[in-house]
């Protein structure tokens, strides 16, 4: 008891620590907490919220610097009024009978330092559900991200909502997290296992719900025969989609494809297909001028050498700086091997149960190619017992969705109020 009391005192004493309110206003934690405390949440899915998101979408689409980059364009489309309206009506349909959704209160978002659009998705969903939001921005912000936040703050200010949505920066070693958690009803912790472990021990408000986004692994299942049948144009289209899944965020996002299964009975065909698809990915990477840092290239080469020693490898194709393809004989746990930037494992399997035996709870996204709805459902039902949170077509791995990591983020950002007549 005494110790806990001391901790409270300690956290109070630290509350004069400085926070930067984006872009450059210095305030103390105390002032921030007081000012957000003066605000109140709004009803879920209220019209001004759609307007803010739509305005942000428009601003991004008008900004040539941002629309050059796929992640920002994708975000802008995701925020459009029509898209958000669909999200809202889908959410309404999911609501249990006799309930009304209400905001949770104050949400604290701790997005990853290195994936620049995530914090906007995280914020947008919580915002839509009527919550107050404090978003900790990455320590180093790229020019594009800064531009996007300026658009975002302008859209909020137009509706008088800027005081209830704060975008802040503060040093990681400070005690600000502790102070913010003390007023949080909801906290989003992105950024992997180590960060979650470090932060989830920091006490929060007793009723606070924590959504942890841990380290994940993602792979792809391609139908071997479908690839055999595909013509040049179809194969190129698949490679273009696969390129997006693999190289967006340097293959270091949770949803980035890192292993490709060829499902089918023809092992030799699978080998041919590995070569063919790898070659097409090389063409994609080269034509899009994907830049690879020398250190990363070296790390890929080193990883393929280590894999040859440790894993039971049939063949490594490493002739291009862009694509290193490692053909596995067996199926060891390769989840921790991630040099990034185009390092792909390939494995031929005869049936989905071989994949199911490999699946762990850590696995997040499965992209697929060449399966009809029935085949896909059969595969999904085999895999999902052990893990896997989403199955989407090749090319959609990084498309953000309100159903993420097994959470319904809209539902988690709100609470259910039972209304009985």
């Amino acid at each position, binding site marked *: 008891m005494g110790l806990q009391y001391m901790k409270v005192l300690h956290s109070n004493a630290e509350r004069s620590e400085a926070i930067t309110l984006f872009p450059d206003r210095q305030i103390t934690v105390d002032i921030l907490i007081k000012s957000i405390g003066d605000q109140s949440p709004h009803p879920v899915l209220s019209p001004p919220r759609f307007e803010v998101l739509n305005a942000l979408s428009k601003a991004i689409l008008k900004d040539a610097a941002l629309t050059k980059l796929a992640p920002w364009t994708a975000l802008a489309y995701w925020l459009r009024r029509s898209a958000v309206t669909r999200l809202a009506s889908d959410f309404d349909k999911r609501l249990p009978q006799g309930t009304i959704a209400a905001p949770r209160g104050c949400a604290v978002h701790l997005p*990853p330092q290195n994936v620049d659009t995530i914090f906007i998705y995280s914020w947008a969903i919580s915002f839509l559900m009527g919550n107050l939001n404090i978003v900790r921005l990455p320590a180093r912000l790229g020019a594009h991200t800064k531009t996007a936040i300026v658009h975002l703050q302008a859209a909020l200010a137009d509706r008088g909502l800027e005081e209830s949505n704060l975008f802040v920066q503060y040093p*990681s070693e400070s*005690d600000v997290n502790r102070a913010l958690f003390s007023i949080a009803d909801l906290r989003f912790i992105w950024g*992997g296992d180590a960060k979650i*472990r*470090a932060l989830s021990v*920091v006490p929060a408000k007793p009723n606070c719900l924590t959504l942890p986004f841990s380290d*994940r692994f993602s792979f792809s299942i391609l139908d071997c025969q479908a690839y055999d049948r595909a013509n040049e144009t179809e194969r190129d289209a698949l490679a273009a989609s696969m390129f997006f899944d693999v190289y967006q965020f340097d293959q270091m996002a949770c949803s980035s494809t890192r292993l490709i299964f060829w499902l089918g009975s023809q092992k030799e065909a699978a080998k041919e297909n590995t070569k063919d698809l790898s070659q097409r990915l090389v063409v994609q990477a080269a034509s899009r001028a994907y830049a690879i*840092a020398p250190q990363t290239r070296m790390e890929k080469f080193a990883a393929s050498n280590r894999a040859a*020693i440790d894993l039971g490898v049939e063949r490594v194709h490493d002739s291009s700086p862009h694509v290193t393809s490692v053909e596995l004989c067996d199926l060891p746990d390769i989840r921790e091997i991630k040099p990034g930037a185009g390092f792909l494992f390939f494995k031929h399997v005869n049936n989905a149960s071989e994949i199911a035996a490999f699946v762990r709870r850590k696995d997040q996204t499965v992209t697929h190619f060449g399966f009809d709805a029935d085949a896909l459902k059969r595969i999904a039902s085999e895999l999902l017992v052990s893990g896997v949170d989403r199955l989407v077509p090749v090319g959609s791995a990084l498309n953000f969705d309100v159903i993420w990591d097994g959470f319904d983020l809209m539902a988690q950002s709100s609470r259910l109020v039972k209304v009985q007549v």
Partner: protein
Amino acid sequence: MGSLTVQNSPALTQFNDLMLASQWSVPQQDKETLLLSGLNDLSKHHSANCKEYGRITNALWDRFSAARVEDVPFVPVSLFKSHRLSSVPHEAVRMTMTSSGTTGSSLSKIAIDHETTSRQARSLNASISAVVGGKRPPMLVVDSETVVRDPKLLSARGAGVLGMMRFGRDHCFLLDGDMKFRREALRDWVAKHQGTPILIFGFTFLVWQFLYSFTQEDKLDLSNGVLVHSGGWKKLQSEAVSPDVFRASFHQSSGLSRIYNFYGMVEQMGAICLEASDGFLYPPNIADVIIRDPATFAPLAPGKEGLIQMVSLVPTSYPGHSVLTEDLGVIEYIDRGVDGRLGKALRVIGRLPKTELRGCSDVVAASLAA
């Protein structure tokens, strides 16, 4: 010296042939012919006797009988940090050398047998005696004796010091176990050897930090000395000390003008690239450098900057005969004949710069605990 070497030891014939010529006297073309044949022997030997290396050549390389030196399979230098690779039976390993490396705290672990030790010593001897002379002069070591105390497990620094100590006598260590200056001992030693040629060896940053300041304060006359140093300029560059400043400063403070830098690594002991009067570094007869494009790994022509690959006929006990380093360099010219030296003239640029990839997982997570 090679009396104990096994007759059928791989690449021994080519090694001996190259050692017959005086150091740096073999024209590039002739050198490559002998190196190629020796390197192919070594690839075969290591594939057969080191199962890890065999797996690598199987998975990554179409053939290990190369038609050109540039086609000889190469392994990344970091592999010696993640794996202990040996091509000889456990009981044949005489010692394991270690080095701190580029990737944090991991160490290279190099298994050395008698044959490899012998080749290291023979090649190193040919290089150092070429600049020091045949007789073993009194030697000043700019380091502490503690780094050579346990020869069973040597650090890169210790291995370097121990390897060099054979070229001098009456060794004086400049530093004590706490890396403190042994001022009195040094004064006595210098007085004792006044007027005779002396050999000085140390790592570049230690030589600068300790010996240079001493020559300044004590007006030491080292004009009879030969300084051999190694270990990179990174720490000195932050103090804005270039190779030229380094040379000029010593010359001015103590008259020391015979200064030889060399490029070497624990994974390539015996194959040091030693500086000539043009300031460039020359690989010994039994080794060579290849510069590769950092992205495609294609071999590059002289004048083009890229990754340094070292090939050497020294390592028989571990598969290090062809190693791609993480250092950047450039071949300035070939067979120019500066100081009578033939072959490739290397300039080392520095380490490959570190990069940070994007991703969902925060690297600095541990420090986030509030």
